[in-house]
């Protein structure tokens, strides 16, 4: 889901940088709400996110996809914390590993660090009224990841209409391709990983779980 440099034109890239400024600002300020106990936890969850993105999973059409881990952070700490930590991961990936891009960094941050954790988190919040926490978390991660992939698909696919010479495929091609990879492979993986992690935390540290709950959207 990392849009590389060159696939989005300058206007699209600038648009996403401007769009991301308030999200980054609010996210970084939100870090002051972290309980001292949560500071190291968010650190290891950020590293966890970096690592799970290295696990490329096979998609039946011959491509690959990966999970992000954003919904786990959104539920355990808060969606704003996820915005900051996934943005850190995306920056390291772009600068040091050539994964994603510098011009597309803000667009990638919007998809994976804003759309994904917020959609995942609020899906979880709605579903947990009817389902168990663990099931709601798994479905939340699935919906969050697929939504982020579809949004990325729209960014690829709108580019030919905005400025040709960059991503050549329109959204008739890009959206189904992005949706398919994440519906069949990465989505189910995200659901299983998220549900497993949440099950473990719920069982071993229920009080920490509740702390994430109370603080998540404060500030």
């Amino acid at each position: 889901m990392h849009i590389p440099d060159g696939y989005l034109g300058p206007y699209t890239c600038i648009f996403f940088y401007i769009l991301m400024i308030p999200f980054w600002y609010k996210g970084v300020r939100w870090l002051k709400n972290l309980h001292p106990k949560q500071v190291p936890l968010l650190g290891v969850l950020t590293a966890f996110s970096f690592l799970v993105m290295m696990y490329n999973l096979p998609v039946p059409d011959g491509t690959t996809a990966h999970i992000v881990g954003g919904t786990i952070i959104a539920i355990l700490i808060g969606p704003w914390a996820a915005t900051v930590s996934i943005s850190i991961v995306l920056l390291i990936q772009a600068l040091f590993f050539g994964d994603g891009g510098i011009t597309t960094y803000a667009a990638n941050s919007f998809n994976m660090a804003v759309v994904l954790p917020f959609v995942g988190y609020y899906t979880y919040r709605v579903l947990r009224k009817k389902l168990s926490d663990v099931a709601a978390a798994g479905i939340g991660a699935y919906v969050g990841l697929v939504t982020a992939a579809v949004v990325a698909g729209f960014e690829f696919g709108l580019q030919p209409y905005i400025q040709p010479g960059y991503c050549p495929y329109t959204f008739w091609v890009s959206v189904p391709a992005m949706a398919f990879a994440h519906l069949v492979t990465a989505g189910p993986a995200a659901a299983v990983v998220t549900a497993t992690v949440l099950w473990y935390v719920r069982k071993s540290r229920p009080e920490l779980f509740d702390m994430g709950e109370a603080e998540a959207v404060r500030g």
Partner: protein
Amino acid sequence: MDRLTKTFLAVIGVLIILSPIGILLVWNYGDAWGEWDPSDLAGQVHEKLTGMEKLSSAWTHALLPDYNIPGWEDKFHASIGYIISAVVGVALVFGAYYVLIKVVGASR
């Protein structure tokens, strides 16, 4: 240190060691959708993508491009390169996170 944080640290260690699964499982697969090399893509669509050619080289200073040591192409070397990348990446993520927390904490 919190028990849960320690558990996650152990999980991070295991994920680093097992990281080559992330390339070996998809060894004969293509790139993720939309992450192709620009010249391959231009050939594919029989179109000159002038804007893409220019912007695609916006950043060429990646230390470990594609999470590998350049030239380590076979499965064994690529796996070692991937583990090295995982270690370097985790260290950089911790470093960046630590700096950010210090900066934000200081303005409290």
